[in-house]
């Protein structure tokens, strides 16, 4: 039975570390004019932090709930998953309220006519009552509030796939790919508000990343089977990353852009985000493969104190995601107030990350009953994982 390796694998520090990194990236990239986003993956290829976040979410979902299902049965595990879905939903609604309140506060209290003009609507303007109803139904999601609803939908479907992904990970990958292909081919999506809008992150397409992560977790050590091709795969991955970096940088330098042959352009564009273009999936997989080779789970540097804040943020991912989204809006307002000066971009980015880390430490302290030590060897409650 393939359940064994899943249960035995314990907590992989890389998951928290890279999820923390993804959360930092999401915050930095959500500030529209931000030179610091040059430190994130986004400008060097097709995929961005969203793929990292969703993949790790799928991976940790298996780690957390496979063992629970084994021990307490499917019903109990499904109930726990739905408790988590409820937490995510509550967090999303709270974030929606806090986010809207911030917009209103900025518009009214700061008395900046230009800001009022640009920020007052957010789609709430024409029919606020209906917008609130649609927000509760997850159909209306203002700016940057798209990721949690995606996660909620993915996790809500997860109990029904969990038994399968543990027994037949390859089967689940195949079905997931089929659904992805059909979604792209027939343009399926979930309805949104206002009318005729669709989900910015289409769950029917993005599930392919989530279940990619879930299948990898389920396969566990069996993934080592791929190691017989480690060199050719690594070479392919490197070549593809170089190609992607060239294209991504060409969006910033016209002389580079002119070097891209027309037939390449015809082949790759548009690189859809809503239905996660295959180029994005491949880019993420190439990155993940190289990270797997270069950063083994037992690398000592993963436990360096320097990286502790990243790990803490990754452990408290839901809280930190919400805070990051909220702060990204504040940062946007501040940067535009200082006429987009580079200094203001750097200051708000650093300040935002510091606040996120502080919040992560406080949350860890609360969870530990007010006595969180260094805690590197500590095992947090499984539920908090995904």
């Amino acid at each position: 039975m393939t359940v064994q390796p899943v249960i035995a694998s314990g907590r992989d520090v890389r998951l928290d570390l890279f999820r923390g990194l993804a959360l930092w990236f999401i915050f930095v990239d959500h500030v529209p004019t931000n030179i610091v986003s040059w430190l994130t993956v986004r400008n060097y290829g097709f995929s961005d932090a969203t793929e990292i976040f969703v993949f790790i979410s799928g991976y940790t979902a298996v780690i957390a709930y496979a063992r629970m299902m084994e021990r307490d049965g499917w019903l109990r595990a499904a109930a726990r998953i739905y408790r988590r879905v409820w937490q995510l939903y509550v967090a999303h609604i709270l974030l929606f309220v806090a986010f809207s309140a911030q917009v209103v506060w900025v518009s009214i209290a700061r008395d900046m006519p230009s800001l009022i003009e640009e920020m007052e609507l957010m789609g709430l303007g024409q029919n606020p009552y209906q917008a609130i109803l649609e927000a509760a139904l997850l159909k209306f999601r203002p700016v940057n509030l798209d990721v949690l609803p995606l996660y909620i939908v993915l996790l809500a479907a997860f109990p029904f796939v969990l038994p399968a992904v543990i027994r037949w990970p390859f089967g689940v990958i195949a079905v997931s790919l089929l659904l992805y292909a059909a979604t792209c081919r027939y343009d399926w999506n979930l309805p949104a508000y206002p009318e005729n809008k669709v989900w910015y992150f289409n769950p029917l397409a993005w599930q392919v990343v989530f279940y990619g992560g879930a299948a990898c977790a389920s396969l566990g050590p069996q993934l080592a089977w791929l190691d017989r091709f480690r060199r050719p795969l690594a070479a392919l991955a490197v070549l593809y990353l170089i190609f992607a970096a060239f294209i991504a940088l060409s969006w910033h330098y016209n002389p580079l852009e002119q070097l891209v042959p027309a037939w390449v352009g015809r082949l790759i564009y548009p690189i859809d985000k809503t239905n996660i273009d295959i180029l994005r999936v491949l880019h993420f997989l190439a990155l993940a493969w190289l990270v797997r080779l270069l950063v083994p789970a037992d690398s000592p540097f993963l436990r360096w104190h320097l990286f502790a804040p990243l790990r803490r943020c990754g452990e408290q991912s839901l809280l930190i995601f919400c805070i990051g989204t909220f702060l990204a809006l504040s940062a946007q307002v501040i940067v535009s107030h200082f006429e987009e000066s580079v200094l203001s971009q750097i200051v708000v980015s650093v300040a935002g990350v510091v606040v996120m880390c502080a919040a992560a430490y406080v949350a860890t302290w609360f969870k530990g009953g007010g006595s969180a030590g260094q805690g590197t060897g500590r095992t947090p409650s499984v539920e908090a994982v995904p």
Partner: protein
Amino acid sequence: MSRAWLWLGVAVSLLLPMTASSQSMTLCRAKPELLELGNPLLAARKSIAERRKLRIIALGSSSTSGYGVSNPVFAYPAQLKMGLDKALPGIDVDVINRGIGGQDVEEMSARLRGELQENPASLVVWQTGTNAAIRQMPLDKFTRWLRDGLALGKSLGADFVLMNLQYVPAVVAAPDKEAYEKIMAAAAKEYDAGLFRRFDIMHGWYQDGMPYAQFVQLDGLHLNDFGQKCIGKLLTKSILNSLNGP
């Protein structure tokens, strides 16, 4: 060692010109002749003069609906409304956003009658051609649907402004993009519609040295916040030129 320094130098020189894309509208420019729609917009003038009212339908696909912008207010129809409100005090300006992602002339022509019946407007800004060019819609079909739509719209008494393709990597890579543009220009002339030359305007940005990242989303297709705001601003200017012209 010296080799390491060389690589460091290369890396730094690559990183030096990196700047964050600015949202500042000082970069938003176009040659004045590109802001002539070539149509006096008589129905719109009449509505303003007689009823102190200007209702505009923005018919189009994802650029009109504002796909991927960080705030729906940045989409060009909302920008058009804000611009006209400022420029036409005392006139009741209404811009109705009827952009539906993924559509092109075929679906838009089909819903045109319904849109105009639901919201009788004196001006329709019809943004189209991009999805057709990317998906290689046969040119004869494109021509036919576009002309059918214009004929129908004109018969319902509205002025039309055609907004042509956007200059973005996905469109630039499309082989027949100029053909779609020409068809739109010819149809505008024949059916007495205005033409907003978005393709040439944006091409001008690119030729001025503006990188795609400044005005295009990372998918290589959709306008970002800056692109949308700037197009909204320039469209406002063009429409005002027409309304105030001879």
